[in-house]
């Protein structure tokens, strides 16, 4: 009888990275350092700086930028302006994630369980939208949803509505645009998990008396959980920071945090305040990630 694998050992077939391993990882490490760590550090420094009248950064330490986010400058009480923006962005991103999960999981399941020769073709269909710029695709949605757009025209000519519906420049339009843009990012990682799922485990669940729903709950979902977590992160985080879709389809009526940050850097030329907003967003991401991976460890 063989002995069980000790918990301290590395799994079979894996080893600690040696010199060659580190060399192979160099491009990625350099990339991370130059384009993630360094800019983030610069932003962190900026977020504690001030600006002069011309919008130049003055290296004068202040908590002012963060105070401006959380407190009202006149009353000194908890400020709602930016918190509302944050909250709105989180709600949009969360709604997008939930819709992507509800719509994406069945698709990923179907593709992952399809005969092998079909899978690549079906995956290709998921990726077809990437062949054109997402800006073009967003403008396409705008022509569909506009007051004189395709959808309203169809509904009107069918006699279902008398007046055009207010579709574009609504929160609904923003969530629709975000869902449309990020759905593939949910489908792909979940597909990866579904494809790896051993079919005999699903059969074993059925065999032991679990109907389709119980089998999904107690076997399929727990075993594809890593894919779901990856999908949630890949949708939630970019959706939270996305500004172009919110700007184009929301019409700037109720801005999201991405739009506000972009405005601070470009229109308002207040880099330190933009940096402070950006760092706060990073903090929100970190909390979201911590929750997601924490749940994964507990499962």
């Amino acid at each position, binding site marked *: *009888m*063989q*002995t*069980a*694998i000790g918990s301290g050992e590395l799994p079979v077939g894996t080893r600690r990275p040696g010199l060659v391993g580190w060399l192979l990882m160099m491009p990625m490490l350099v990339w991370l350092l130059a384009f993630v760590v360094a800019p983030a550090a610069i932003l962190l420094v900026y977020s504690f700086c001030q600006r002069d009248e011309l919008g130049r950064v003055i290296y004068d330490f202040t908590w002012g930028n963060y105070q401006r986010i959380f407190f009202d400058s006149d009353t000194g009480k908890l400020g709602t302006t930016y918190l509302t923006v944050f909250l709105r962005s989180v709600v949009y991103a969360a709604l997008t994630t939930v819709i992507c999960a509800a719509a994406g999981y069945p698709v990923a399941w179907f593709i992952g369980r399809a005969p092998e020769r079909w899978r690549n073709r079906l995956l290709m269909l998921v990726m077809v939208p990437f062949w054109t710029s997402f800006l073009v695709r967003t403008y396409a949605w705008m022509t569909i949803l506009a007051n004189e757009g395709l959808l309203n025209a169809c509904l009107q000519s069918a006699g279902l509505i008398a007046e055009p519906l207010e579709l574009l420049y609504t929160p609904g339009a923003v969530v629709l645009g975000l869902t449309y843009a990020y759905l593939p990012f949910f489908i792909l990682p979940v597909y990866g998990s579904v494809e790896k799922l*051993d079919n*005999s*485990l699903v*059969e*074993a*669940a*059925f*065999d*032991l*008396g*679990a*109907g389709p729903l*119980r*089998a999904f709950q*107690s*076997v399929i979902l*727990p*075993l594809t959980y890593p894919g779901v977590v990856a999908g949630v992160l890949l949708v939630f985080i970019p959706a939270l920071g996305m500004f172009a879709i919110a700007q184009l389809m929301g019409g700037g009526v109720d801005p999201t945090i991405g739009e506000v940050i972009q405005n601070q850097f470009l229109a308002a030329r207040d880099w330190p305040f933009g940096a402070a907003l950006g760092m706060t967003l990073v903090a929100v991401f970190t909390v979201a990630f911590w929750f997601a991976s924490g749940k994964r460890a507990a*499962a």
Partner: protein
Amino acid sequence: MVELRSVTKRFGTVTAVEQVSLRIAAGEFLTLLGPSGCGKTTLLRMISGFETPTEGTVHLDNEDVTHLPPYRRNVNQVFQSYALFPHLTVADNITFGLRMQKLPKSEIARRLKEVTELVSLGGMESRKPAQLSGGQRQRVALARAIVCRPKVLLLDEPLSALDAKLRHAMQIELKRLQRTLGITFVFVTHDQEEALTMSDRIAIVNQGRLEQVASADEIYHAPKTTFVAHFIGKANILPATPIGEEGGLWRIRLAADVELAMEAKPPAAGTEMLLSIRPEKIHLRKTRPSAANVFEARVEEEIFRGPIDELTLRTASGLALTAILTNEGSMQEAIHAGDKVFCHVHPGDIVLVRAG
């Protein structure tokens, strides 16, 4: 208990199972034996409900279950790869079926204790499948199925992943378990030794059809087709012509210099037929025995196989046969390659077979 009525299963243009009818009695240990791709697993999956027959019906306990999904059938399966849930502990794996039945907690705990003792898994309850050896995983898979107290337990080559020694021990344990529990076992394997060791009856499957369903003893000693004779053990398959009746026995000619008597009645006089003679049923002597049914041959080749020697014999007219000699040591007269021997076959040990 289980009954298949003229069951046929086609996958597209491929026919996996063709017109199979089979009755399995309650408490019986039946083995579906055949080469890979013969349709034995498809047969099993139609009983478990993972496949629906294209034609014919499946009955469990006199109830037509042909279109009942697997989770509504009172059968459980031990999968070839065990299919243990990797995210659950041994205890949660074993009690999975009971929890699906929503049994009370106390009942689940009681049955878990009972079954872990039965398959000697005590102390492993909180481990994950990845921390178990192959033999232990096998026991968990078995425990998970029998704890549900199914009417029929289906086993799909459950021992094929184990090493030879462990496999042998598990064969005996499975048989013991089956007797203790009194559950009907349907066991799929391509391993003839497994089939012979455990089964009450063996169903030989070949190209989607049943070749023969009988006890291990009968399958071995009275194979009905050349396929069965070859698949279980070794056999000399020889063409022969009947030449007449003599004292209740039938004279047959196998070659110009080999004429024997046999007990089985040939299908028709004058037409050629096929015979099967097991190698160990050819008795070899260096001097002519006084008995009837003897022919002469020369030992052409000798292969040492430990307890036995496998000999290739050839008669003067060129008929080749395989015989087995038990290595009994100094008590025995030595027979080696090149020796002339007298071969004695009992008339009852010559079996008529169909080509198949």
